[in-house]
């Protein structure tokens, strides 16, 4: 893989991590001393994607803003990698009028039509709308691709099955991505299915399936290249499972008492791993690391400042915008 691409992947991962760390900080800042989920500048459930950067960075590197992405309850990494407006996304997370949804959506409901991005908090139910986006691309003769993301827990939900079957049947330009972080909240993968790779499910629909191990951003990048190319050239959908890592809790406040694998987690963090790999390969030096961090920090803090400056929506307008 060429150096520029590797650097881009690295920088994207850094940007995502920087964002998630900043949200972590902001989220908890005013929920002290006693954690109260509804308190503070960012209230509500918060599902952060730290550890899963390789999936979003690798996949979205193959896309343009004319392609669609539907993400999950854990959407930030895909939103950022797909180029959702960082300012307006952050403002939405803060519930402000300049947010993508004018404060009506929140962190699980980010919609940016400019880059065809959306997400949903209902497990696996982000898949079906992606089919329709792909159908619209197909009908209009564009070469747009729709990427539909879920977790490995979601792969046992009915919507997963129906969507893969329909996409294969209609040869829709879709790439189905499964982020296998081994956990669905507290339920380990072993307690939710007895198969070892969701990629094996692709055959049940007549599409190719592939599993990328080791949370490898370059592995994802390459597998996604094939899947996206296939979709773009009208050959139909693919399924791509990535073995990734949930670095933090399911949501913020999750005590993770159930998590027997916790000791091993820090050592599996993909960011230092990839950094080390690129350093060893001579792709990355101290200066590049520092500048990646500084650039990311600047963009993220800028977005947070923007969000903080943006006013709260007017309560009297709460019932507006139900209908167009």
């Amino acid at each position: 893989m060429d150096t520029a691409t590797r650097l881009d992947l690295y920088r994207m991962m850094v940007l995502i991590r920087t964002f998630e760390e900043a949200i972590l900080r902001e989220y908890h800042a005013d929920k002290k001393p006693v954690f109260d989920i509804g308190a503070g500048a960012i209230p509500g459930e918060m599902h952060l994607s730290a550890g899963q950067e390789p999936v979003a960075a690798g996949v979205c590197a193959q896309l343009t803003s004319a392609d669609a992405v539907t993400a999950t309850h854990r959407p930030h990494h895909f939103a950022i990698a797909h180029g959702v407006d960082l300012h307006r996304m952050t403002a939405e997370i803060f519930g402000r009028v300049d947010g993508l949804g004018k404060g009506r959506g929140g962190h699980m409901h980010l919609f940016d039509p400019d880059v065809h991005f959306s997400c949903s908090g209902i497990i696996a139910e982000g898949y079906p709308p992606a089919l329709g986006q792909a159908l619209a691309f197909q009908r209009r003769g564009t070469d747009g691709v729709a990427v539909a993301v879920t977790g490995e827990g979601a792969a046992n939900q009915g919507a997963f099955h129906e969507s893969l079957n329909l996409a294969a049947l209609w040869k829709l330009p879709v790439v189905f991505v499964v982020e296998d972080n081994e956990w669905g909240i507290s339920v380990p993968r072993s307690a939710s299915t007895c198969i070892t790779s969701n990629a094996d499910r692709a055959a049940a629909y007549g599409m190719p399936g592939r599993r990328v191990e080791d949370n490898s951003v370059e592995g994802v990048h390459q597998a996604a290249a094939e899947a996206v190319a296939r979709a773009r050239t009208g050959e139909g959908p693919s399924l791509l499972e990535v073995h990734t890592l949930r670095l933090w809790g399911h949501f913020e406040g999750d005590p993770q008492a159930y998590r027997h694998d916790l000791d091993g987690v820090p050592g599996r963090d993909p960011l230092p791993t990839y950094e080390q790999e690129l350093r060893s390969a001579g792709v990355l030096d101290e200066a590049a690391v520092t500048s990646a961090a500084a650039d990311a920090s600047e963009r993220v803090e800028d977005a947070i400042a923007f969000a903080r400056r943006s006013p709260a929506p007017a309560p009297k307008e709460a019932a507006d915008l139900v209908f167009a």
Partner: protein
Amino acid sequence: MSLTDASAPTTTRRLSTSKAMVEAIAAEMDRDQDVFVMGEDVGAYGGIFSSTTGLLDRFGPQRVVDTPISETAFIGAAIGAAVEGMRPIAELMFADFFGVCMDQIYNHMAKIHYESGGNVRVPIVLTTAVGGGYSDGAQHSQCLWGTFAHLPGMKVVVPSNPADAKGLMTSAIRDDNPVVYMFHKGIMGLPWMAKNPRSVGPVPEEDYEVPIGKAAIARPGTDVTVATLSLSVHHALDVADELAGDDIDCEVVDLRSLVPLDTDTILESVGRTGRLLVVDEDYRSFGVSGEIIARVAERDPGLLTAPPVRVAVPDVPIPYARGLEDAVLPTADRIRSAVFGVMGR
């Protein structure tokens, strides 16, 4: 052209409700390449209840798409296509099947516009057949419009006759919001089901919209307001005609849509008659009949000179056997007794 009153069309051409519905869909498909139809058996079969008859021949399989039995996937696909600017018409064969796909309908179709702060529009028409009366049992006979109307973000349209069916369909397709279009099997004019005589009626040839959110006075009257919808409008009209001989003058209000609900027309009517009977083929409790009574009472309980009455499906699954089903449906017999009741006779 816009019709606000069911009696407005001046034409001698008569169509069944299903043909009128299809005519509207075809005209919009001609007008707008983004309109297409998808659902189970909408192609060669033409819709189990003839809601798409002839469209496949006319528009081909790209625009009239048979789907697998995967309601979550294809209704979700309609949502995604709508988000990208297409204008899908998706059919859920029976409203009774909502349970396999409701998440797409109410958590996605109905909420995306709001959650996106108005930045994303979802112009879908979700057509679905409702209603009983032919012994199709507890999973194939329900109206369930109360369930859809309760959940915010989708309009709910309930035509009762061919002219409205056409005009409301045209409005629904042109609407930038999700519209659930619930057609009762008993008003479609199907050759294989007992036909209500009013399931065939005059339908103007040209395009027109019947505005969504405007009830119609299907029959003016002075003694009692019968607020009702869909097939029950016809039963109410039959009873009204009959009771005219008994010197009871019923006003029949055809709601035509539940969301938005035309509260003004109801209040104005009850204001004149002082009496309210709600006839509803959905379950009685926590639904349409309660809502209509509440809208009147919360304006002014004094509008009601007698306790309001409802004729609805008691809170029981729709039974199969004819006699049992008749006993729970809002039949003319039950409506007649209820009118006498509310009139204090």
